[in-house]
């Protein structure tokens, strides 16, 4: 479904990704794990069109993504929940969701999609008139996911899903994601600092370090691999403690 092949990405003169390749198959949950600054978000921004790779190509169902603008990529069926959620804080929850249904086909179905999202996250329905900026962190993440789903994506990119959220909220959102993946056959690419969580949700995983892919495999293999255990599982449990 998604095929990122050999991309180099720069911020100005600064190279952030070296020869990154990854493939995601239909209706899977994939994850990209790595420490802070490893380049996870850069990969996500390159797929969603916010950044342009200098070399390499990105294909989605045979369509080349790295030459078309971000809003067209959404129309093709890739939707991203950006890091930090980036809601429209002065707009209501309902308006945030409506804006998510901007591509033409999604716009026609928006009442149905909206009903479904309210079913998945009932809190959003209760607060639909409230400004997005007034929501708690967990509710904001739910809204961000809801907004991304409003465009009827085939592939959902989630950048730092659990950042700053309580374990209860993380569990709730994880359950919803797993559910949507199963029932709607939605493919998901998850970027996570919490490696344990990411590998428990995902089918396959990629490990990124200093802008390079250094490991890949099924989630269960990665969980057992010495490399991941040493580098991340140790760090992530220490990170939870403080």
């Amino acid at each position, binding site marked *: 479904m998604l095929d990122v092949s050999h991309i180099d990405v720069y911020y100005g003169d600064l190279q952030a990704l070296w020869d990154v390749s990854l493939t995601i198959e239909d209706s899977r949950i994939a994850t990209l794990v790595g420490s802070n600054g490893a380049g996870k978000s850069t990969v996500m921004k390159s797929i969603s*069109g916010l950044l342009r790779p200098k070399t390499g190509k990105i294909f989605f169902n045979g369509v080349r993504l790295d030459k078309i603008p971000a809003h067209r990529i*959404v129309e093709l069926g890739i939707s991203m929940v*950006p890091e930090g959620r980036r809601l429209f804080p002065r707009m209501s929850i309902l308006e945030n969701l409506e804006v998510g249904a901007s591509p033409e086909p999604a716009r026609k179905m928006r009442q149905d999609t909206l009903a479904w999202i309210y079913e998945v996250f009932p809190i959003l329905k209760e607060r639909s008139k409230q400004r997005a900026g007034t929501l708690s962190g967990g509710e904001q993440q739910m809204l961000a996911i809801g907004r991304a789903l409003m465009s009827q994506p085939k592939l959902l990119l989630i950048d730092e899903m659990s950042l700053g959220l309580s374990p209860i909220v993380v569990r709730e959102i994880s359950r919803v994601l797993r559910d949507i993946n199963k029932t709607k056959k939605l493919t998901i690419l998850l970027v996570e600092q919490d490696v344990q969580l990411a590998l428990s949700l995902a089918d396959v995983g990629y490990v990124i370090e200093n802008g390079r892919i250094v490991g890949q495999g099924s989630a269960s293999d990665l969980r057992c691999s010495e490399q991941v255990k040493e580098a991340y599982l140790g760090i992530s449990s220490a990170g939870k403690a403080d």
Partner: protein
Amino acid sequence: MNSVIQTLLIGVIIGSLYGLVALGFGLIMGVMKFVNIAHGSFIIIGGFISYWLFTFLGIDPYLSIPLVMIGMFVMGLVLYQLLFSPLLKLPRPEMRLDKSLLITFGVIWILDNIETLIWTPNARTIITSYSASTLNIAGIRLSYTGLIGLGIAVMAAVALHFTLTRTYFGKHVRAASEDSGAASLSGINVRRVYLISCGIAAALAGVAGAVIVTSYSITPSSGLSWLLTAMVVIVLAGEGNITYILPAGIVLGVIQSASTLVVSPAYQQPIALIIFILILMIRPHGLFASR
């Protein structure tokens, strides 16, 4: 007592015109973070178009407003394509402010000179059969042109408000103004939103020009003084608070007008600037800002 009420009502009328002048300027600034200091020149061009339609074709200045708007809308699109769209390549949106300020300052010179070539430096105004007539109620006299101007300003502001809050396009505009990156991630064609907003802003400048030319005389260089007032209004309203632009304009108009009861009318412009500085000192986010 009547003269006090009359003075305040005249303030409302003038203030609504300030609001109308500031509307398009505030839209561009709120949505794109561009300072279009040439907005005043756009207003004057709108006024001259209205003047021509009246002088050569005999079309009533209020009836010709839709024509002026269409012409100015196209000008807004051209301005965006030629000058603003290259600025979007700047790495950070904050950098748009000063760059657009410099560029549109140059636009003022170009437009004002073109206006002088076409319309000569002479002051122009539209005098209709009803220009001198006034509405008299209980000893208060208000000119019809002023009252019609007030009505048009309110209509324009309400129309813009409902466009921004009730239509899909308006929600796209607001989303793009809050976070253009997140907007394009939501499937919004941000450049198209910018382009059309620019057109709407220029069309609003056209409306303001058409209203101004019925009550004031215009010259190719008179745009800047209107624009300066518009900037005071924007500061009063708070940047990005498009809904409060008209109320802020009216507040400014009433204060200016009320001041003539105490000091000489010559102090109106300085009073606007004093308010400008006071607001920046006390409530830098604007009089109506919730932040």
